[in-house]
């Protein structure tokens, strides 16, 4: 049911010398990195290091003052979030961007509803697809007709990630996806990230939780005061080394 697997190994997103200033403050200072295909990349750093700004720039919500964002090898000029979605990138926002008053199935298709002749919603097809999606991802909700406001925090997070998984062609950006979750729900979200990678998508995850970063990620990007200060292969580094880089001891 999901779209074609991405088979070429070109980086899904590349940043080249991206700079963003807010007034006199340089939030992001000439940052360059690539997110390879089929990988989980963690973006770590202290508060105010520029992680969220980076994720917003990739999401198309913020436009960089300098530098280029390349998607699938092509420079991107648009800052319209709709265009970004069309280019195969999905974002799981910290506030999840779900409509609390609408049910699970409706939220999964919000803004991208399937329609039949005369513009009527094809609710049956959408519900079928939604059920398949949640089954595949092993996400449990009481019913597809349950309003999102009735779900637990973890269930909401799972729905937001399921939506991103369904529509993303290349990359899912997640900003602190487990910050508000309990242990079990955090595990579930981590499983979902692994599922995404298995499906040939990449994940760029902003996280404060280094245990999680080491459990999940393939690469770690460390930011400090707006600059990218280090890039590690997760397998070849240690918590001590990453912590030292974050705090600037090394």
């Amino acid at each position, binding site marked *: 049911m999901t779209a074609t697997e991405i088979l070429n190994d070109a980086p899904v997103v590349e940043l080249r010398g991206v700079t963003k200033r807010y007034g006199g403050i340089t939030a992001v200072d000439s940052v360059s990195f690539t997110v390879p295909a089929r990988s989980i990349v963690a973006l770590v750093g202290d508060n105010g290091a520029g992680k969220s700004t980076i994720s917003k720039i990739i999401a198309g919500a913020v436009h960089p003052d300098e530098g280029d964002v390349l998607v699938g090898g092509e420079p991107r000029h648009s800052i319209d979030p709709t265009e970004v979605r069309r280019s195969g990138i999905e974002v799981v926002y910290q506030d999840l961007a779900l409509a609390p008053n609408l049910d699970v199935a409706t939220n999964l298709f919000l803004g991208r*509803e399937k*329609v039949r002749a005369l513009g009527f*919603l094809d609710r049956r097809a959408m519900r079928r697809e939604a059920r398949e999606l949640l089954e595949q991802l092993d996400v449990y909700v009481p019913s597809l007709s349950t309003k999102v406001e009735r779900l637990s925090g973890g269930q909401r997070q799972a729905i937001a990630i399921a939506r991103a998984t369904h529509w993303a062609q290349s990359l899912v950006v997640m900003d602190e996806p487990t910050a508000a979750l309990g242990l079990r729900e955090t595990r579930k979200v981590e499983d979902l990230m692994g599922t995404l990678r298995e499906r040939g998508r990449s994940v760029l995850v902003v996280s404060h939780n280094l245990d999680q970063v080491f459990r999940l990620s393939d690469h770690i990007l460390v930011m400090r005061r707006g600059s990218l200060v280090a890039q590690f292969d997760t397998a070849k580094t240690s918590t001590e080394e990453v912590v030292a880089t974050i705090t600037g001891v090394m």
Partner: protein
Amino acid sequence: MSSATPQQTPGRGLRASAPGSPSATAEGEGSARRTWRAEPPDWFAAVAGAILVAIVLTFLSDAFLTTNNLTNVLAQTAVLTILATGQCFVLLTAGIDLSVSATMAFAGTMLGMLTVTYDWPAVLGLVVTFACGLVIGLVNGMLIARFALPAFIVTLGGLLVWRGLALQMVGGINTTGLPDFITWLGQDDLLGIPVPALVALAVVAVSAVVVSRTRFGVGLRAIGGSVSAAERSGVPVLRYKITAYVVCSLLATLGGVVLVGRLDSAGGSLGTGMELMVISAAAIGGVSLFGGSGSPWGAFFGAILIGIIQNGLNLLGTSSFVQQIATGVILVLAVAVDQGRRRLARRWA
């Protein structure tokens, strides 16, 4: 299918079974039925209230439960229903349109002036009248959605402007002797049912389908639930908001056409103060004033409940002041019942 599945309590997080296990179902049909799946519709309180009031009135007055009287209620509430349905579109987006009755009066006056004073054919008069309604809706929608002015202020201004303009156009004097087609719309019967009631029912039915079965309807509800979520999900928020105000103004225009047909009189004082009744009807019918929930059927049942109460109090010979008091009490009561129902539903879920 769910009986063999070790399920957690609904509402208690994600199931921990292994991915791809055969027992993994996103929605256990059996268990879903056991949980409180089907919430009562938003307009539940209004229907219950209407039935209750109807039963009481049946005992209090012999004249109430007659075909003649009930079709009369339908005809009398037609204009209120049409306006409340339009209001529903705007309320869904968490907006409000206080200018509906002024728009209605302006449209009615315009139609009267064109077809009576200037002796235009009815069709041409209707086209120009509806074009005016369209422009009013566009002005409201642009000011509110594009320039982010508060809906309350924009439409409060509109209330003064359009009614003032209507009074100014005809110098405060009503025109009468409207074309046959217009009076047919307002006064005649078709298959034993008043034409205005049929028009109102058609408006409600079509609107209900639009709200529940189209991308536009979903978008309106999403905007009312969370504008930022709607925006980031790709809902064309600006276009949908403007369209909601246009639909509201066009239905107010239709209400004006039906009303002048019914009265065979058009002028700037038509339906003065009716905007509050319109918003009350929608709220009584479970359309949330905070956006995101409600349906045109709610607007319909809310209008019917108001209509039955007014009719009953008329039959019992009560003054119109008492009717106003009763409507006010019902409004607060209906919203209170609705809140209580939601709280109960949440507790049981």
